[in-house]
């Protein structure tokens, strides 16, 4: 009797087993296949606190600190967590009006009530210290430390560049950035952004259901430390830079000085200059707008971005090309025939060296004609394009018509017109030497960027090669070097010809009939070449130089916009002051120095009026 229905125990077991299996399958779904749950768990229980690394510092070539950081504080608010706030007290402590508080709060609420948004930006260390002790009373508010750039000497703004908040495109392009981060926007800050920014750290805090921090998640096992940004050790000579900027006061134009043997840029000035401190902190937006609207374009880096007609300095490259092609001999003479192209009064040049010294326009007309018309074809409409192609190649060897690989952003290429250019401009077969001869004297369609002019001076100084101009020697904790800045770019032209050029340029400064005696410095052999570039408006004054003649230490290009009086009058003495300052450490010709520092050659343009940062 007792074991009737015993088979029913199997049914009971099956029920138990079925439920157990259902649970295990359900567990598998939740735990093995639903990664969303894990994500949700992390997002609600873990709070990531970004540790911002200090941005790398920037030094000059002598180890002087040019750019460093200063701590500031951003006050942030999570509107949902603001509770029982004594608004009046808050306003008086933080130093804002009630209306301002309401406006800022509305803006924060509009962004998000649950996540943090900016309440007040860039509060100085001193200001923050004065009310830091009150902060605990204001639930929902907290501060985040940020760093601002500080420049003790207000120099080299165009080289150093500036940083600014990332925009949406930059966030999209690189996942490193989050809203509110800073990024290099121009200059070295931009081109070495990845070195300077360092690596962000991440501290993970475990928070409870009330959003209170319990402690570091897994005792910090998954935390990462911020890695400081790498420092830049630049080639800039801060003293020379400051001096050169002083010389360019009241002028528009630029100065580029390079150490020829290494390609290291010693000084890079674009005038008008501005104080880099203007683009830092809370005054940045306002100042930026003013600088941007200024008609003298202070934000425009003329040394890298202005494309000027080079004027007569271009003749040096023409002479070298013609000698190298063998179309003239060093002892070649040409009459100064002003019917071909205008010239100033001087005796006819009897050699290349004299032609450079006297900067004879007809001489280079003849020379250029021999380069362009090599009699390879009967038709001049075929012969000239051939010659132009050969010439193009030489010009590129001098670094013209191409972007020099300098480590600054937005450098321009200038223009060396090629056959395609003229075919487009005049039509194929409709142009020849007679159409393009102005190129010979650095006018016409030729355009050169000032850094390329300085580079030309380097090529002569080095007697035939250049090293890509650059601004950073090495960077980061491992003193990393850019290998491309150790590579010689050869022109392939016999150094003996460059000796002729150097002699000619020496005569420009020192010889009878030279065009730049104002560049003469006692006891220093300066070699230079003047240029007076015609353009709409007053001529630009141009001068390139290097010194000393043997083992040159410095090569300079000076470009002064709309300066009546030619290259010898404005640019040459300014270049000589830069050279003297660099080689000697100080300038003996105080009268020359004073005169050119105060002079304002060009039509006066209002210099930018900007907001000064409040002195602390």
């Amino acid at each position, binding site marked *: 009797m007792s074991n009737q229905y015993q088979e029913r125990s199997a049914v009971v077991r099956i029920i138990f087993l079925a439920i*157990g299996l259902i649970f295990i399958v359900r567990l598998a779904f939740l735990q*093995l296949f639903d990664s969303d749950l894990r994500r949700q768990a992390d997002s609600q229980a873990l709070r990531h606190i970004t540790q911002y690394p200090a941005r790398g510092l920037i030094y000059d070539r002598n180890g002087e600190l040019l750019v460093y950081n200063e701590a500031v504080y951003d006050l942030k608010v999570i509107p949902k967590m603001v509770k029982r706030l004594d608004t009046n007290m808050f306003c008086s402590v933080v130093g804002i009006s009630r209306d301002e508080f309401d406006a800022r709060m509305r803006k924060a609420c509009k962004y998000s009530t649950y996540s943090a948004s900016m309440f007040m930006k860039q509060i100085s260390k001193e200001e923050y210290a004065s009310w830091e002790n009150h902060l605990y009373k204001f639930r929902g508010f907290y501060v985040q430390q940020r760093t601002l750039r500080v420049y003790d000497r207000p120099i080299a703004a165009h080289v150093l560049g500036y940083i600014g908040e990332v925009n949406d495109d930059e966030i999209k392009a690189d996942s490193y950035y989050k809203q509110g981060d800073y990024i290099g926007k121009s200059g070295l800050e931009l081109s070495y952004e990845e070195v300077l920014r360092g690596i962000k750290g991440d501290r993970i805090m475990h928070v409870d259901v009330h959003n209170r921090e319990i402690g570091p998640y897994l005792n910090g096992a998954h935390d990462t430390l911020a890695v400081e940004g790498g420092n830049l050790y630049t080639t800039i000579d801060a003293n020379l830079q400051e001096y050169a900027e002083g010389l360019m006061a009241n002028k528009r134009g630029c100065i580029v000085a390079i150490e020829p043997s290494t390609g290291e840029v010693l000084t890079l000035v674009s005038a008008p200059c501005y104080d880099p401190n203007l683009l830092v902190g809370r005054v940045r937006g306002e100042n930026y707008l003013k600088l941007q609207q200024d008609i003298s374009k202070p934000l425009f880096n003329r040394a890298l971005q202005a494309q000027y007609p080079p004027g007569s300095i271009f003749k040096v490259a023409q002479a070298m090309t013609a000698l190298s092609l063998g179309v003239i001999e060093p002892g070649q003479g040409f009459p100064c025939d002003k019917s071909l192209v205008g010239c100033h009064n001087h005796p006819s040049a009897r050699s290349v060296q004299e032609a450079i010294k006297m900067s004879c326009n007809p001489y280079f007309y003849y020379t250029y004609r021999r380069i362009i018309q090599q009699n390879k074809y009967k038709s001049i409409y075929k012969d000239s394009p051939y010659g132009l192609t050969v010439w193009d190649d030489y010009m590129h060897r001098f670094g013209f018509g191409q972007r020099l690989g300098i480590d600054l952003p937005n450098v321009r290429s200038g223009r060396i017109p090629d056959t395609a250019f003229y075919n487009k401009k005049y039509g194929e077969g409709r142009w020849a030497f007679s159409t393009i001869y102005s190129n010979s004297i650095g006018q016409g369609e030729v355009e050169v960027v000032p850094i390329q002019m300085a580079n030309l001076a380097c090529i002569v100084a080095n007697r035939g090669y250049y090293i890509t101009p650059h601004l950073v020697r090495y960077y980061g904790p491992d003193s990393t070097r850019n290998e491309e800045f150790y590579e010689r770019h050869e022109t392939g032209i016999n150094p003996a010809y460059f000796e002729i050029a150097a002699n000619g340029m020496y005569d420009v400064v020192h010889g009878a009939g030279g065009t730049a005696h104002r560049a003469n410095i006692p006891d220093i052999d300066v070699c230079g070449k003047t240029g007076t570039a015609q353009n709409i408006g007053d001529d630009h004054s141009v001068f390139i130089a290097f010194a000393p003649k043997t083992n040159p230490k410095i090569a300079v290009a000076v470009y002064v916009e709309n300066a009546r009086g030619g290259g010898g009058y404005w640019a040459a003495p300014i270049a000589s002051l830069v050279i003297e300052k660099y080689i000697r450490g100080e300038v003996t010709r105080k009268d020359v120095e004073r005169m050119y520092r105060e002079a304002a050659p060009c039509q006066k343009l209002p210099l930018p009026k900007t907001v000064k940062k409040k002195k602390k």
Partner: protein
Amino acid sequence: MENKIDWVSLLLYLAILLFGWLNIYAACYDEAHSAVFDFSTRHGKQLIWIGVSLVLALVITLIEPNVFSSMAYLIYIVVIGLLVVVLFIGTVTKGGLSWIDFGPFKFQPAEFAKFATALALSKYMSSLDLDYRQLRTKLIAWSFILLPAAIIILQHDTGSALVFASFLLPMYREGMSPHILVFGLVAVVLFVLALLVNKFIIIGVLAAIALFYLFVWLNKRTRKHYVWVAALFLGCSLFTVSVDFAFDKVLQPHQRDRIYVLLGKTDDKSNTGYNVNQSKIAIGSGGLFGKGFLKGTITKADFVPEQETDFIFCTVGEEWGFVGSSLLILAYIGLLFRLIRLAERQYSKFSRFYGYSVASILFLHIFINIGMVLGLLPVIGIPLPFFSYGGSSLMAFTILLFIFLRQDQARTKLM
């Protein structure tokens, strides 16, 4: 001559007990109170309950085994009395009026009603000359079950009352018609469908099934078939139509919400659905091997309310992962299988019926509790046996289990 106590059951019991305590320790862990023997904490208190339970278990194994059957009705009457007393002097906890205060400790008679009913019903079902087919017998048997269940419903503890449905299984084993189980299943399915689907569609489908059965499935049709199918169809249809009424009038608002949340009709993760959603997040974030003991980020941060009591299983899910949770489920199923096996080897009908009752009561708790935590069943607050924090439930489950183990140990003496 007595046998040894069944060591498989004993080991599974101890293992679940220990694992449960570790999870309670994790669920209420905080660095300030991490001492194991800190009796101001819940894990400390649970340690006391475990100690008391083990003593109770030992005492039970020393008692003469036939005492339980002879005292069954007495125990039942005493517990029913306590349940009634609770209605008058009980304290309200979490919406349920089911506790009696004893100084610092609280005591929940409903937990003890389970084994008392099991004893009394076993006693009744094992009476000599009992004819289960008689209506009178059925009525008396059901009265044993429904009386405590009704009082517990009056205490607003629907979950505990639901547990009395577990006696369906031992009754089934002893000869109750399997149709009752099938009816129960059909009723649940229809109930859920009625809430989700248009009722006319359900009735249409029911009609289609009935017609299919009558005219396609059956080769020969008798009048009896017509009558039965028509009656079943009408019954099911009426049930379907009346679901709304029952749902609105019989269930409490919070119960309706819980069912709606489960069925996905309301998506309220901040209120009613909060608990289950957090529980799923905690379990789901555990992955294959879990985050490790005391490393559950959700567990430690109090995201899941009731975590050391009814929602303790999500601690297992988070910290011990799929492997740990599955092993726990397997341990429970193993214990249930073992109990069925032990029940089947009893010589006395009392012991066998009681054994089935024990397995079924434990099963229903496990089913409802884990089903709820996994989001498969509506939120019904009942503890996970031997696992959830709570003295009354742990002691009651221990008594429930060890009375049976004691019966099994002495099975050769109890004929």
